């Protein structure tokens, strides 16, 4: 039995311990905010935070997060008003929106580590997250905005 805290709630899993966290979140718990985009940590659509650090849920086995604290987009802020979320809305970042939960979690994790990233640091830190619609300019601007006060 694996115990893990997800968005502040204790959960337990007695199935396959190698099950990727992403499918546990999405299919077993119904937390569908984290997305599947590649399954190999290449696109970042599944990004969550494990103990405040960004992690790719698609290659993180549920056993790897035993006893740890996982935050998904649903748990980032109780009213959805994390500075990154607010900045995202102010800049009208999304097009299709599918990658955005992962982008937002990556950006929030970046600001945890580095509250005032430069544009180069933003482009570097966000480079694991693909947006096929091409919202990159706005992502960069929104992270910058979030870091300077929304």
């Amino acid at each position, binding site marked *: 039995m694996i115990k893990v805290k997800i968005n502040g709630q204790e959960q337990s899993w007695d199935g396959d311990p190698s099950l990727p966290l992403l*499918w546990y979140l999405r299919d077993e718990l119904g937390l569908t905010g*984290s997305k599947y*985009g590649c399954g190999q940590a290449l696109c970042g659509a599944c990004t969550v935070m494990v103990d405040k650090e960004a992690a790719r849920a698609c290659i993180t086995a549920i056993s790897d997060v035993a006893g740890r604290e996982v935050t998904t987009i649903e748990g980032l802020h109780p009213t959805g008003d994390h500075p990154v*979320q607010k900045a995202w809305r102010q800049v009208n970042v999304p097009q299709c929106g599918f990658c955005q939960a992962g982008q937002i979690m990556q950006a929030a994790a970046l600001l945890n580590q580095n509250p005032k990233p430069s544009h180069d640091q933003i482009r570097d830190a966000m480079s694991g997250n693909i947006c096929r619609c091409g919202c990159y300019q706005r992502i*960069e601007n929104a992270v910058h905005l979030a870091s300077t006060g929304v």
Partner: protein
Amino acid sequence: MTIIANPDSATSASRRGFERHLKVENVSRRAILQTLGLAGGFVLAAPLLSRPAFAAYETGAGKMPHGTVVDPKIFVSIAPDGIVSILAHRSEMGTGVRTSLPLIVAEEMEADWTKVRVVQAPGDEVKFGNQDTDGSRSTRHYLLPMRQIGAMARAMLEAAAAKRLGVPANEVKAVNHEVVHSASGKRLGFGELAADAANQPVPAVDSVQLKSPKDFRYLGKGQVSVVDLHDITVGKARYGADVRLPGMKYAVIARPPVTGGKVKSFDSAEALKVPGVEQVLEVKGWPWPSKFQPLGGVAVVARNTGAAIKGRDALKVEWDDGPNAAYDSVAYRAELEAAARQPGLVVRQEGDVEAALKSADKIVTGEYYLPHFAHASMEPPVAVADVKGDKAEIWAPVQSPGGTREDVAKTLQLPPENVTVNVTLLGGGFGRKSKCDFALEAALLSKTLGAPVKVQWTRDDDIQHDFLHTVSVERIEAGLDKSGKVVAWRHRSVAPTILSTFAAGADHAAPFELGMGLVDMPFEIANIQCENPAAKAMTRIGWFRSVSNIPRAFAVQSMVGELAHATGRDQKDMLLELIGTPRVVKLASVKDLWNYGEPYESYPIDTGRLRRVVEFVAEKGNWGRSLPKGHGLGIAAHRSFVSYIATIVEVSVDDKGKLLVHQVDSAIDCGVFVNPERIQSQLEGAAIMGLSLAKYGEVSFKNGRVQQRNFDDHPVVRIDEAPLVTNVHIVPADADTPPSGVGEPGVPPFAPALANAIFAATGKRLRALPIGNQLAT
């Protein structure tokens, strides 16, 4: 009582019979399977307006399957609390259409946008009109119908208020969610009027007056965010992948690695040992060419997607590779090149190109190769189906809700009335989700299993089994006279056709493909010949955002750069000289000119507008500015989806061949527009997609198998290589200019502008994409 509460009560429920036949002309991406006969619903036609709002213009909307429906009782409902619900009948894949079409209705009916809720319509084209969200058509086909719907709803509200107040209808006026009688100062809210308004007769479409553009609160202003913005940022927006039903099974499918192949045998023993795997079964495939039908294969069904994927990894399948096992991209390119060097089917002919080339002082030849591209939308194909008895319900991210309904009905042999297609948000589409094979897979599996099923494509599945963008060789020979004037232009375009996905042996382009940058090439040259040699398809070819315009614009606009270099002229000056005098291009020699399905009178090829976007972008983007060493500027312009776009790209290439895009400026003339903020986002995105396909875009085959699988060997552009700045400039349009496409036309000019910039920076002329390591020194 609302204006309409229950969509099922609508009157037009009877299905019109439509002859199905394969005719590929004036068609949507699924109408390839459908008739071009008189479509149902309201056909947008001329004499609508008695006062100068937007002038009436005719579009091709009426020729789309099921045409256009203009009925406020279908599209608008008002609750007693005043909340106005407006149906979005097109699919949202990131263009903003789910916001912009309802916004048009709200504008005309004087609804307060903060009191509007958008409701996504299911697939039902008899009720809603055509729903194929493709071809960059939504605004150009629906601006006027949505305005009419809004104006009709407003008239019904005003009539109800006048009756209630006992005053003539012309004394009341709807203003921001109320109807006001200014003489008495009385005001009635939309909610208070809902029940009475619903009982008013629906006014005739040509009896209602549209608002004057000067009174617009929302249209053209760009101050309205998309309706799903908040949900997207908190993870609540629901895509196809996010649908969950009680008792739902999760399935992934192992599909034949070669298009047209099938299962020979399989061994499920190891797969069934994977914890969570419940069942392994064969799924039906269709013979090549399979249209939008599933490819077949072996499905692994499990309690969650992770288990299904793991089970599939453990599955052993032997395949019969079928007729395309020899497909080899290296060999195929050589075949295309050979074909492009021989005369082909002549599809446009003006003057005598052969003679003009013979007598030319100089001939500049460019032969350009563009490989297959994969769509790679961030949400891979996915669908949920629940088939019970003689009823089927689907939840899917489809660009073709109506077509999906028809195809599910046919595949399950059910009447379409028994099939419900719920349209979720699409995590990207780019043309891939115009083809509903993934929904058909889910439907077939659900029927077999007797339970709701989600079929999830992995990224590998998506790249390996896409309906790919074609692969092409474009060869252009330009003859110049002694003065450097271009007097002859021969363009041979050879590429497998989308028709081949529908008809065995189809090997020449359809009019809709010829009309994307080949026969509609607008240059003012005395002798022009366009040819289309044959090409045999060996995989599924489909529509990819902007379709054949990508290779044609790349070739034509690269050739402009080559000619500028050959004659020592500025690229922009060369481009303007070739475009020539402002005029409407006459294409008398072109049979079946497609023109994106639009009447030529409303949407002619207007070189004045093409010149204007070039001049506009040159001015706004500061063409000719001085640049640091190693930098270069490139320009390209292209008309597609009846819009005009010009793009300037500034690049630098360092001594190791590393490419950086410093600035992009794009100017678009898309006629009258609804939401400039979303036009800007579409063009920003088009630059990224254009850069992706130029740098990396390639799906190649060996032994019939796709050689790429995921974002490691099929990279796309990431944020750290995105242009440093992208500026979008919208050419102001007067209210009489019909609206035209936005979603696709930004893509085609990007890659040639980039190639021209790279040439300016380095002197290297790129004639084949992707760039890959061609810049390495």
